[in-house]
């Protein structure tokens, strides 16, 4: 490895190598096991087979859960972004009564454990009679992902130069045109970064969703969790491999687009 050996000593590189192995080992093992030709979990695997990937296609319940996760992620990330943009504009540009309260309210889901949100939503949705519906999943997901979209959109709005928009409006553009033609294009990277972080957070969410999902409306993580509770076989490994590959592709796009460290420092 051509890492900077002048500054990182031998001990540091040894530590680094072990750390990388620690991080990657569970993912690599999952991928290796997925290619087993055996009917049970075994490794090191003797031989190579796509048998368990074909098995996924024979499981409509997994396919359905995958599409439901995808839909849920798309709808809730979009809704969260649409709610975040005006809220971020107001929070960044106006000083008004209740501003601090609203800011705290919108970020509060970061402080509340997902398990608590899960039981709270379970009670609420079943009381108002929409328990287990797709709409209830969307509502719950928007609440937990909006802090992410709001933070990134807010950061984008704060870094904005307002002069061009003011100029446009003073030249007779309506505020809406000013927003659409001047402000929105400028904050678009932040909006897109927030949307993507929100999407992947929704797509992965288990703890809260496990309480809100129903057999008819389930997500892929919940489906996998329930399956693990029953049995662990190579099918889980092949489904996981598909998730890993898709996530890595998504991650590379996100990194190109916005910078992974910038996006994720907003995740804590």
């Amino acid at each position, binding site marked *: 490895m051509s890492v900077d050996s002048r500054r990182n000593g031998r001990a*540091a590189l040894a530590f*680094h190598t072990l750390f990388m192995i620690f991080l990657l080992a569970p993912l690599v093992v999952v991928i290796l096991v997925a290619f087993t030709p055996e009917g049970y979990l075994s490794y090191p695997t003797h031989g190579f087979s796509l048998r368990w990937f074909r098995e996924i296609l024979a499981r409509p319940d997994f396919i359905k859960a995958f599409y439901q996760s995808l839909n849920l992620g798309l709808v809730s990330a979009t809704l969260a972004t649409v709610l975040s943009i005006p809220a971020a504009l107001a929070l960044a540009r106006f000083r008004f009564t209740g501003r601090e309260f609203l800011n705290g309210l919108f970020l509060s889901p970061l402080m509340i454990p997902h398990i608590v949100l899960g039981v709270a939503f379970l*009670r609420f949705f079943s009381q108002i009679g929409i328990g287990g519906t797709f709409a209830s999943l969307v509502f719950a997901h928007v609440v937990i992902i909006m802090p992410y979209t709001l933070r990134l959109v807010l950061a984008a709005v704060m870094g904005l130069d307002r002069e061009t928009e003011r100029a446009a409006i003073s030249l007779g553009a309506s505020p809406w045109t000013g927003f659409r033609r001047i402000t929105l294009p400028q904050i678009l990277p932040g909006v897109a970064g927030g949307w993507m972080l929100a999407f992947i957070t929704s797509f992965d969410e288990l703890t809260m969703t496990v309480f809100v999902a129903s057999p008819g409306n389930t997500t892929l993580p919940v489906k996998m969790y329930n399956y693990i509770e029953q049995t662990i076989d190579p099918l889980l490994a092949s489904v996981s491999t598909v998730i890993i590959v898709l*996530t890595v592709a998504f991650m590379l796009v996100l990194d190109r687009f916005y910078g992974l460290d910038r996006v994720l420092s907003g995740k804590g």
Partner: protein
Amino acid sequence: MSEMTLESRMAGRSRPSVRSRSLAWIPFWLTGPAAVFFLVLLGMPLLMTLVLSFYTFDYTAGISETLTLSNYTDVLFDGYFHEIFLRTYEISLITTLCCVVLGAPEAYIIYRMRRPWRSICLLITLGPLLISVVVRTLGWVLLIGGNGLLSQFMQALGLAGTRGFSLMYTQTGVVIAMVHVLVPFMVISVWASLRKVDLSTGDAALSLGAKPFTVLRRVIFPQVLPGVLSGSLIIFALTASYFATPSIIGGRRLKVVATSVYDEYLSTMNWPLGASISIVLLVLNVVIVMSYSRWVERRFRRTLGEG
């Protein structure tokens, strides 16, 4: 916190000079949809859970709306729950310490790397945060489970008996997997502080004759301490309420707070008791986060005052 004060300062500066009555309503129109959404969909569920935690539960009659404190006296004074809460916070503490010991040096090592390796290693470190926790935990089940690689490895070294061994359903197993899930948060948190550090201060100390380890301890570490402290808080708070990993690796034999909430709701169906456990968890979480932040703030104000 600092983010918020910065925002309000910016907001103050960019305050519109026009003070017409219609303009004053603009921020309320803009935040209105999100505010209504949150008050209804976050406020109501939490409030209803708070109320639910005072309801009475009977195994034959189910939930009745008679108010009682017995759920809370159960959670707060029963040895069974003490054990679960103690175990949860013990796991959180050990996980946090491991993340500090592993994550902080790793962030520093990656930070000192040259161009292509630096971003590649950062990507490898942070990437797992985006991969489903179920997938990552499954990986650990395969590694540390009954016939897992770790067991085979130890057998090959002659360290384990012929029957092999498993870390499933043990606290060690849960901690290992939790560290794997959460250590990226420490790296990113320390990384954020490192970006503000002037590494030439270290060079200066070196050139003045300090040993490399002394430089690390006296020059670099104090500068990244804020990152270590905020990373620790995130990790501690997340571990204390984590569900997926303790549930899959710890199972029913090693209950933590989150899995006991799950069991009360979905197995025992004693929702009021489950609700009171989650309210206690929520309150503890908020108290820990608040008092820790206050402690850190005070500490740094004092240090800065002395400096």
